[in-house]
């Protein structure tokens, strides 16, 4: 089947504004989602589900959140780990302290608390930008690191901030197996990302991008920088907070504050850079990349070292990982600042013309 959009005329604005205007794209995505729902649980083994797919889904959601703030609205943020922590611990508190609290409500409420915190820490963005804003978001990160470690009330009085949840169920459906967890995450991620995509292609998304590109011009056409920046922080923190809740409840089961440290923030930022700033799909690409890379390295490095004839310890593995990450970030920023998403769309455009050259 040849990839083309000729012969498919759009006859309404509604059709023109769809998420996937090209027919084949739409079929491909629907097919992929169908496979994800029906096929994957049957085919994938427990390891793949637990170690690859579930982290990938949850981190994609968080990456979409970060992308909204950093990629679409241009506000640099190094505090996303903290927002994940807020979402996780808030959901935890509600789940544990309120008897009979449904899981989904707890997670969404965790997201809302994260929204409030996010808006609060977004206030500096009204005054400063760029590097200075990065410092303010780092403040959020370190403050939350400390808060979840030291303020006992937040963690239901656990000693080191480490907590556990178990026996998750959604309206009678018990999340026992890896496949259950996977499907639950898939559902949450799909719904929220659809919402995010709608926001991004609507008026709000344009406002965010206007502020990113030139906020003086934006104010001249009546866009208020204040409310727009804070709305970006709000939406972004909500998504990141829910992702944090999912990460804690579904992926980890029991966790402590260090699961959401600055390393996590940087990891999310890298996902967004490599995947593509300002692209929802790019967030997925970036998450996939960051999830798969360590696994790939741990498989190939021993083999490579065998070739070169020297011993590699696990420590060396993580060093190599750092080096490759760092090198890749720099490479991407130099070669394709718009990340994998741009490479993807360039590839699709080539495919659309294939077999012709232009």
């Amino acid at each position, binding site marked *: 089947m040849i990839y083309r959009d000729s012969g498919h005329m759009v006859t309404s604005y509604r059709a023109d504004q769809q998420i996937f205007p090209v027919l084949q794209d739409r079929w491909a995505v629907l097919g992929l989602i169908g496979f994800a729902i029906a096929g994957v649980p049957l085919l994938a083994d427990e390891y793949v589900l637990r170690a690859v797919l579930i982290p990938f889904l949850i981190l994609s959601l968080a990456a979409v959140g970060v992308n909204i703030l950093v990629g679409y609205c241009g506000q640099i943020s190094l505090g996303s780990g903290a927002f994940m922590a807020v979402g996780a611990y808030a959901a935890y508190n509600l789940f544990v302290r309120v008897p009979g609290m449904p899981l989904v409500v707890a997670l969404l409420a965790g997201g809302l608390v994260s929204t409030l915190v996010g808006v609060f820490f977004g*206030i500096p963005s009204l005054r400063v930008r760029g590097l200075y804003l990065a410092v303010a978001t780092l403040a959020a990160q370190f403050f939350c690191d400390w808060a979840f470690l*030291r303020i006992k009330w937040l963690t239901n009085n656990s000693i080191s901030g480490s907590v556990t949840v178990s026996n998750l169920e959604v309206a009678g459906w018990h999340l026992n197996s890896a496949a259950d967890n996977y499907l639950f995450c898939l559902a949450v991620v799909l719904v929220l990302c659809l919402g995010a995509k709608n926001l991004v292609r609507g008026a709000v998304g344009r406002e965010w991008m206007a502020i990113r590109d030139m906020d003086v011009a934006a104010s001249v056409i009546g866009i208020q920088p204040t409310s727009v920046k804070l709305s970006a922080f709000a939406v972004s923190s909500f998504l990141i907070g829910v992702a944090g809740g999912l990460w804690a409840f579904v992926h980890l089961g029991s966790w402590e504050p260090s699961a959401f440290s*600055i390393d996590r923030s940087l990891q999310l930022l890298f996902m967004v850079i490599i995947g593509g700033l300002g692209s929802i799909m790019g967030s997925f690409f970036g998450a996939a990349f960051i999830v798969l890379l360590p696994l790939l390295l741990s498989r190939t490095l021993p083999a490579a070292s065998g070739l070169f004839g020297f011993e590699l310890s696990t420590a*060396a593995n993580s*060093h*190599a*990982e750092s080096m490759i990450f760092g*090198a890749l970030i720099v490479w991407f*920023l130099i070669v394709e600042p718009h990340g994998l998403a741009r490479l993807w769309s360039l590839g699709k455009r080539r495919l659309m013309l294939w077999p012709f050259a232009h």
Partner: protein
Amino acid sequence: MAGMLYSLIGLGFVLIFKASGVFNFAQGALVLFAALALARLAEWIPKWSGMSPGALSTTLAFIAAAAIMFLLAWLIERLVLRHLVNQDAATLVMATLGVAYFIDGMGQAIFGSDIYKIDIGMPKDPIFVLADYFQGGILVNKEDLYAALIATALVTALSLFFQLTSTGRALRAVADDHQAAQSIGIPLDRIWVIVWCVAGVVALVAGMIWGSKLGVQFSLSIVALRALPVVILGGLTSVPGAILGGLIIGVGEKLSEVYVGPFLGGGIEIWFAYALAVAFLLIRPQGLFGEKIINRV
């Protein structure tokens, strides 16, 4: 005094920012790398050359470490910065983050990741000063005093360099306006190599001092993140600001821990510096001595 170390790291930040407008997140990684290099070279040089460990071998190790830092600086400029000349601030920040990761990994891969000692012959015993004014005097570490002396010497040397030499003048021109400097023939890439070399040396001195005090370990690179607020307080473009900022933060952290900490459950050192930085950002973003940030319409 942690303040001194913060100042030195902050100095590295300020230097690179002044000269190239790039904020170097990799400064911490550079400090760690330099410290590791120094520590290991001090071990290896005696082993390789049969010298007995002592002042001579340590000095050689220092020179070798400095040479490695120069090489690293040149590589960074060549491979990374040259290609990112016209990108916006966010991209550059993220690039330096990438460089930081890379140097982190590489440093530990080459030099190992255990805790190492640096012995540069600094006396470790404390002395009491001002016994007449305060009861029992204030306990000051002799090591800290020496550290402060070294740092002061470094800063003085650098200030003289900037003000009096023609290279220093070129550096200031580049910091002001890249394109203008380029158009009068100042070789931008060579200047940047020099700047990063200087930053590398500052990193080396910082690493040396702290390594001698605490031992070289991974947490050193995290310390750099703690030094960020220093330059916010002092102003990103101000050398004296970095010094003063470092001192304020260093002292402030300890004081806040002692006086405010108990109310809040302790351990507030982690974010005290940042809270101070945020306060400054909201009230006076350019710090104590920095230039006012003008947003032209």
